[in-house]
């Protein structure tokens, strides 16, 4: 009704300055206008997000790579290698885990340690766990690369916030036994956190799967790389 009267009024004074204004005001009350306006807002915000995503994507990838390298240095001790761990990663196609990128530490052309990522699913989604494993299948170290667990409860899997993650160092599938690779609540030997069981359960599960992956692919993992990219000057 308002629309009709406004249009009629506008038709009476087609040249008056209020004519366009009247049309716009009338249009703004129509349901289609709400839809269009909301659609415009959605388009604008989508545009902003797309632009920012494009601007930041490269930098975010660089930061993730830097984090990976820094964590690699923590799970592969310096004194067991004479190569650059990040050079010449190996990609293994595992029947259960899919393609896994493996970084290798070499000394005198022999593999002295391997490092690779496993994914666990915690309370807040993906948890990326980096494992360092020596040639006998013993853990050199474990670090959580990224996660979205609840601050104050689940984030104790970070090395910066708790020493829980250091517990894994030196363990293997035989130590503790296969049945003990669970959190205590599930009858295993790993502590959960007060208020957070799902996060440590996911991390313990991911580490266990990582060790099983090592067991399945041990020969391929330990085979000396064909092209010896090991550079002696590397620190």
């Amino acid at each position, binding site marked *: 009704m308002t629309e009709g009267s406004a249009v009629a009024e506008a038709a009476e004074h087609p040249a008056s300055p209020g004519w366009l204004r009247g049309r716009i005001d009338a249009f*703004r*009350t129509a349901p289609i*206008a*709400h839809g269009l*306006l*909301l659609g415009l*807002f*959605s388009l604008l*915000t989508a545009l*902003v*997000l797309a632009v*920012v*995503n494009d*601007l*930041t994507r490269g*930098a*975010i990838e660089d*930061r993730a790579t*830097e984090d990976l390298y820094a964590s690699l240095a923590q799970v592969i001790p310096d004194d067991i290698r004479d190569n650059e761990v990040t050079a010449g990663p190996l990609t293994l196609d595992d029947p259960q885990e899919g393609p896994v990128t493996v970084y290798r530490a070499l000394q005198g052309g022999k593999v002295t340690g391997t490092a690779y990522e496993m994914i666990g699913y915690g309370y807040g989604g993906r948890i990326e766990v980096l494992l360092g494993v020596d040639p006998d299948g013993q853990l050199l170290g474990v670090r959580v690369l990224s996660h*979205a*667990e*609840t*601050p*104050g*409860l689940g*984030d104790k899997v970070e090395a*910066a*916030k708790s020493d829980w993650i250091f517990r894994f160092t030196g363990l293997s599938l035989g130590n503790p036994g296969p049945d003990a690779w669970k959190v205590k609540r599930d009858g295993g030997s790993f502590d959960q956190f*007060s*208020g957070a069981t799902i996060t440590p359960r996911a991390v313990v599960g991911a580490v266990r799967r990582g060790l099983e992956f090592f067991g399945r692919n041990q020969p391929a993992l330990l085979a000396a790389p064909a092209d010896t990219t090991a550079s002696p000057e590397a620190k």
Partner: protein
Amino acid sequence: MSADYSKIARSGLWDDNIIFGQMLALCPLLAVTGTATNGLGMGLATAAVLVMSGVAISLVRNAITPEIRIPAFVLVIACIVTVVDMALNAWLHDLHKVLGLFIPLIVTNCAILGRAEAFASRNSAPAAAFDGLMMGLGFTASLVFVGACREILGSGTLFANASVLLGPRLGFLEITVIPDYDGFLLLILPPGGFIILGFLLALKSIVDSRQRASGHTADSRLPKVFTAAGVLSPEPEGETAR
């Protein structure tokens, strides 16, 4: 109308404090105030988003028709939170490692939509920015205070892991208040948040009624109306009953 900045400050910091006045944002309150440090991180991240969303919504307030304002505000706020998350991750990566966990939680904070609806959509951009800042600071103070109470009583420490958030130079903030304390798990878990919040609310109520009795504030306290969007209407001309 011209904004009364001292009134905005008082409203954000005390009278309509997001936690203790409006009783909003209880979800992040329960989730992150296990320690004072986490409360501080969440509070600062929220304050930044409150300022930005206040300005953005104030700028587009005349373009939005009343019927679609809530979805439009949600779009703007979600967009800002995502942009902040991506920008921090790309260019302030060390800060993102610490605050990154809190940023997605901000979207669940109904107080931001509440301020957009109750203040930013009716005021100029500078006033909205100031309101966001004051609300954010009041929120931060509340989170740190609740966090400190829960941390001291629950784990016997204060500002644990502060050096991760604030840098090693402020590591001296990390205090063990009660040595060899076994911890009181209930207070670390969400129910502890409710219990502490209840005691603190009672305390604020006592302070407020003392002040009223001594005639400090002569305002006749109007009954506040809460809606799903977290809008409250301390002013008589408020249009909460729509």
